[in-house]
């Protein structure tokens, strides 16, 4: 632990516009930049999903103006099969990397981790600035692939080899499109590695006086655990992307075996392994699921505690369970590969840890439910989205029971059941975590309040809409509906088309509901009522002890000293309903960590 109160400010407040708002080394500005990037990426990703869903519901429908996006991909405004796959690949990639990783982890974590630990900034602020700007460059490179003559890659966000490694002969977008994809993701990894390094060192070395690790709020724990996963997972994905690029540009054959024949020609590659890509990708890919969801768990726990007016049933058990998820996430990745041709005994070996991971997940849910019991629950937009997160996490989690078993994966692998599972558990749940954090921390980030009525309307429409979209995916999967099809021409799939139409209508409806949020966000940023005080939700952690918005060095002239656990609510005999971490008031609480 490091007593920051004895040290001068790390860096002075910038004076120029560029250093204040563009190339800023202030973690709060960087956090906002990440949020803005994630918001733009989310709008792009959602727009792509609309186009995909319209095509899946009504395949020959001419979407007005679509040819402007790609004259080859949408002649006469009707999407071609390859363009569907290209949009699908971009939707998955943008959502997983630039929204679900960026917003809950990099955006909120950057803004609030140093504040919640009582630090003036992160220890490597220039690395922090670099982490955002390389992520921005990565996004630009990814979007640039739309401008390539034959469009972006169509290989899906998982980019399975050898389709991803054989070059342009594999199909539209498989040449330059893949190189741009791998370049973008490789650059993205650099950003995440730099960010993770900062998060870990901030948590371990920059805590203020009195802030023991167990006194960190659950949100800080979520970011800390995620940063450890980020450091190890992205460190594997980045070299994998480099090897993929080399297969394209340097004549190597890491992922392409000998004697492949495409278009009547034997490819010049030899000796590579197609399963190698899957092992490398999923060694990153499964922890990535938790990189997307653990920050949400932390944020939602933090929001719930504040609105339940009581600490969690056990602060420690929740932290240990999140840690167990992180550790187990590296041991389960093979469940993505049950029918891949991997040794079938390995499938059994990967199946058991996958089933075991349901234990810490269940403990987390039970701690949330048990803590709700007997609480004094305040209902607002933030707490509603947090509760919605719990509901979505349960729904997405129970389908994991099926997919953890190799025998059931024979039926369900690569079907819409999988799509429903991961959209609920890491897509919608993580998005709800982002919304919850936004409504909760908006006053601290901007000094203004968001509109609660609009927030509640946004919540209920999104909650119902998300279930209408993603629950039917499970039914489709059980009926054998294969994913990544641009049309359903098989005899047994044709009767399922009305379900796809229902899902498309639900997706458009839910998408429009997000416009309420965007309006609320932008309007409130400039015209919302000013936050009534520095602590509008009556929270206890350090972000509520400082000014709104926080000053450049977070705490002004006086660095905080922490006296209590993060969540001292409804303490018997205390002077108020809540006791802030910085309050020197002596209390006797059974929950107080030593």
């Amino acid at each position, binding site marked *: 632990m490091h007593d920051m109160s004895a040290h001068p400010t790390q860096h002075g407040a910038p004076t120029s516009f560029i250093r204040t708002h563009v190339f800023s080394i202030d973690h709060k500005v960087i956090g906002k930049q990440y949020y803005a990037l994630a918001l733009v990426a989310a709008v792009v990703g959602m727009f792509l999903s609309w186009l995909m869903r319209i095509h899946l519901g009504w395949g020959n429908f001419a979407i007005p103006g679509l040819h402007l996006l790609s004259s080859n991909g949408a002649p006469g405004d009707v999407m071609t099969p390859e363009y569907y796959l290209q949009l699908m690949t971009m939707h998955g990639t943008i959502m997983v990397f630039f929204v679900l990783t960026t917003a809950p982890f990099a955006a909120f974590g950057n803004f609030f981790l140093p504040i919640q630990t009582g630090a003036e900034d992160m220890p490597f602020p220039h690395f922090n600035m670099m982490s955002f700007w390389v992520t921005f460059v990565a996004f630009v490179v990814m979007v640039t692939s739309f401008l390539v003559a034959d469009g972006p890659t169509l290989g899906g966000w998982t980019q399975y080899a050898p389709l991803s490694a054989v070059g342009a002969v594999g199909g539209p977008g498989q040449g330059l499109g893949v190189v741009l994809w791998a370049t973008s993701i490789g650059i993205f990894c650099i950003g995440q590695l730099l960010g993770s390094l900062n998060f870990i060192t901030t948590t371990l070395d920059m805590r203020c006086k009195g802030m023991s690790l167990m006194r960190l709020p659950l949100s800080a724990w979520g970011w800390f655990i995620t940063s450890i996963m980020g450091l190890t997972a992205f460190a594997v994905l980045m070299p994998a992307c480099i090897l993929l690029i080399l297969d394209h540009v340097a004549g190597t054959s890491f992922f392409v075996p000998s004697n492949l*024949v*495409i278009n009547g020609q034997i490819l010049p590659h030899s000796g590579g392994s197609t399963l190698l890509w899957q092992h490398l990708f999923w060694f990153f890919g499964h922890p990535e699921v938790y990189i997307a969801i653990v920050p949400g768990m932390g944020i939602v726990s933090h929001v719930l505690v504040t609105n339940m007016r009581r600490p969690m*049933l056990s602060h420690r058990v929740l932290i240990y369970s999140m840690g167990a998820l992180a550790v187990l996430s590296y041991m389960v990745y093979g469940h993505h590969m049950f029918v891949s041709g991997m040794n079938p005994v390995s499938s059994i070996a990967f199946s058991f840890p996958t*089933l075991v991971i349901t234990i810490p997940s269940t403990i987390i849910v039970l701690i949330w439910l048990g803590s709700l019991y007997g609480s004094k629950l305040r209902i607002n937009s933030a707490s509603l989205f947090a509760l919605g997160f719990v509901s979505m996490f349960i729904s997405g989690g129970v389908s994991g029971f099926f997919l953890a078993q190799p025998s059931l994966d024979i039926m369900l692998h690569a079907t819409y059941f999988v799509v429903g599972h991961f959209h609920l558990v890491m897509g919608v749940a993580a998005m709800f975590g982002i919304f919850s954090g936004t409504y909760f921390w908006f006053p601290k980030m901007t000094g203004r309040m968001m509109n609660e009525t609009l927030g509640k309307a946004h919540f209920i429409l999104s*909650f119902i809409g998300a279930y209408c979209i993603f629950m039917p995916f499970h039914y489709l999967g059980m009926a054998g509906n294969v994913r990544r099809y641009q049309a359903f021409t098989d005899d047994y799939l044709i009767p399922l088309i009305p379900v796809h139409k229902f899902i498309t209508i639900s997706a458009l409806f839910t998408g429009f509901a997000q416009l309420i949020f965007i309006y609320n966000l932008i309007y409130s940023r400039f015209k919302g009522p000013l936050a009534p005080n520095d602590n509008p939700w009556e929270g206890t952690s350090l972000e509520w002890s400082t000014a709104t918005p926080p000053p450049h060095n977070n705490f002004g002239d006086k660095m905080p000293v922490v006296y209590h656990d993060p969540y001292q609510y409804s303490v018997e005999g205390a002077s108020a309903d809540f006791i802030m971490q910085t309050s020197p008031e002596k209390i006797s609480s059974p929950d107080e960590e030593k």
Partner: protein
Amino acid sequence: MAKIFAVVIVLIAIASAIPIIMHTWPLPQDISVHGHLIDEQFSDTMAEAGISFLASQILLAFFIFKFSNPKPGDKVKSFPGGASGLVIAAFLLVGTECLALGVFGVKAWASVYLTPPAADAVPVQVQSGQFAFYFRYPGPDGKFGPIHPDQINEANANFFGIDTTHDQDSKDDIVTAEMAIPVNKEIHLLMHSKDVGHSFYVPELRIQQDFVPGLDVSVHFTATKVGKYEIVCTQLCGLGHYNMKAYLEVKSQDDYDAWIKQQAALQ
């Protein structure tokens, strides 16, 4: 708002369960010997997952309904048994459930993947390529001739790269665009991809297996019901992925014998 939300959660939970209980979109019919093991495992898992889903969602809704918008003076209460009770419950209930599902599930998996094919299983080779399946039967000698990638020529219908001039084993091989198999007879399916990753999925057979370019893999199964079924590709393989399919005809032994004779004559 809290009470509306709680009601919405319960309604969604019930609405989600109805199609499962009513079997609105059931699993496709099972036409394989091993399929019932998978289906039973599926039903057991559905029961356990379904109960967990309904119980958790209803409990969540009930707590939101009961404990939201407290009156001034209300005091917080602790959950009976505290966190330790819940942790023990999670370990005992979910741990046992996981162990049971895992252990019993191995039986179904092993029936497909950990047992060798019968000695008299009918060998069929399937080759996947963008965007079609082709099938090869070994003919009377029971042997497949080698594949020569440099001789693959779709214009000449030499989909497998067979050299009938030099390879003795290839001379009687039978290549078809549709797959036919005899009913109640084990099939040993040898899988080869000529280009990128594909998959062989017949929902009714309860079989799904990826092709691995550069590595030949195999599965074995026995179909129990005569009929025509679809083989579809489930591994994204390019722009024609959605349309990559073939038909599987399960025939009586007599019909199969007649069919293979007819196909041999067409070679």
